[in-house]
């Protein structure tokens, strides 16, 4: 942890960058680590906690092995992202922000991925799928174990 924070150290301390770097390495930033991080960065715990809770992409608990994000932006909405999301919820028996038992998938929504022209969009880990139909959901999920 120290090593990572030293790498991103900048003047003055950049809390967001530091938290993102930690998350990149460990997958999430547990709440208990906040005081330690604050001390190392030379800022208050309230400041670190404030940043950690503010940004939707910062996680305080570990996600599943694969994170599925369904775009809820307007172009995706118009093209039926709601149906794709419902299909995913049924297949995974998980709601938005939930992780499937066994930890295979975490289901999330997101705002626009800039892929609107070939929407609806689903992102799994780093793979982006466009023009997704509910009927394709099964086949897409198969690729992830």
């Amino acid at each position, binding site marked *: 942890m120290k090593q990572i924070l030293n790498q991103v150290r900048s003047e003055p301390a950049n809390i*967001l960058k530091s938290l993102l770097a930690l998350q990149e390495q460990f997958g999430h930033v547990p709440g208990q680590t906040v005081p330690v991080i604050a001390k190392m960065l030379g800022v208050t715990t309230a400041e670190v906690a404030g940043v950690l809770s503010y940004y939707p992409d910062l996680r305080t608990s570990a996600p599943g092995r694969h994170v599925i994000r369904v775009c809820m932006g307007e172009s995706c909405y118009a093209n039926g992202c709601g149906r794709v999301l419902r299909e995913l919820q049924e297949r995974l028996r998980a709601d938005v922000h939930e992780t499937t038992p066994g930890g295979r998938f975490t289901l999330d929504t997101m705002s626009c991925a800039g*892929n609107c022209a070939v929407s609806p969009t689903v992102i799994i880990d780093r793979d982006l799928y*466009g*023009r997704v139909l509910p009927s394709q959901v099964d086949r897409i999920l198969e690729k992830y174990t």
Partner: protein
Amino acid sequence: MATRLYLSNDTSARAAGAAALAEAWADRSDIQLIRTSSRGAFFLEPMVERDGADGRIAWFNVSPQDLPAILSGKGGTPVQTIPFLARQTRWTFANFGETEPLALDEYQARGGLSGLEAAFRLTPDAIIEELRVSQLRGRGGAAFPVWNKWKVAQQAKGERKYVVANADEGDAGTYCDRMILEGDPFRLLEGMLICARAIGAGRGYVYCRQEYPAAAATLRAAIHKADEAELLELDGEPFPIEVVEGAGSYVCGEETALLESLEGKRGVVRARPPYPAQSGLYGCPTIVSNVLTFATIPHILSRGGAWHASLGTEQSRGTIALQLGGRVKHPGLVEVPFGLSLRQVLEEFGGGMAPGSRFKAVQVGGPLGSLFPATGLDLPICYDAFAKAGAVLGHGGIVVYDHETDMVDLARHFMAFTADESCGKCTPCRIGSVRGREILERIQAGSGTMDDLRLLDDLGETMKLASLCALGGRAPYPVLTAIEHFPAEFRNKLSAVHRQS
């Protein structure tokens, strides 16, 4: 000899199948695959091109087994005859589909860097004068004259000055910044350098949203190349540019919230004045403009401000990058001079509705933009006409909704978005959006009353007047325009006793 084929490496082209093509053809020794940016005709992607006698020949919606036809030259269409592209006026997007994004020599061969060279021949004042003559307005939300902002930053005193490119293109339905970052990154860097020279800045940042990983990676590679070519310096001093990624907050697209986030803090909106041009990043004079604005600047310097001012309408000069999405037949990027009507754009470029769909409404300018029914389609696309109609052009995103759209649900969707994304700094937005969502949920559940509709109206007025930034201030527009243009849908959902009143 291997046949040279061109295939876009743009995120949306990849999602449409370009990635699968590249994979399927990876081992073919008879083809040489050049990964370009996308022309933005996404309905035709994946599109494969090869050189012809008079320019490129293209094959549309290609699948791996189409390769023999392409290699034998059967069935291709000359790119210049594709109506979607031929009708556009491309300046900012002129390189798209033509070049490899990270080939600096190609960028230069097609006129790149001549704007920067022109800027080096001018004094900072003369650069700003050129911008004034061009009448360029910021391509983000507020459409503020660019030269004015630069002048303020130039004259402001500060230990350091910064140039910040806002690549937090958060409005749903917009993707032109993403395309520039991925497809023509040197154009952004060139625009930033010109700005830095004009205001005397010593450092640049690109704040890129986390949702655009390919854009951030391409940009970092472009910065590295530009650095190697010794382009990142001004008057003998280094001008480092760093890419900083955000963490999923929509409000960080607002310039002061963006600066807070860049400093590593919670991305909440700062009260203005002072404006960032006077006191921005770490309290120093800072120009924050979005990617498209910076990308427009090289041509203005190389071709002259008067050239730019000769395009477009009275108050909106130059071209606009429209991004068509939703239920249109031909979604994609369209660059045209300001002034075409919405109807023209949807018919001539959008190609009408997607098969099986009937038009219901169109929304311009992202999740905070107003909705237009069919009767509103004659509005010309320019800042003044939109302002007069109480609407915003925003970032030029156009989303078309069809007959299956439930307007009550859509309105709830918008309010839920605002409630989720509110930075919490001011009460009308923080509380108003949650109340708004609750009311709409009540209506949706069938227990709403006429009073609820009036309440939404009241709430909307308060949010419009008393919010600190555009998120709260614009949030009521899509909801209220939905109620205004589709009142029956809302009334039909009210509890039975209230439907008549």
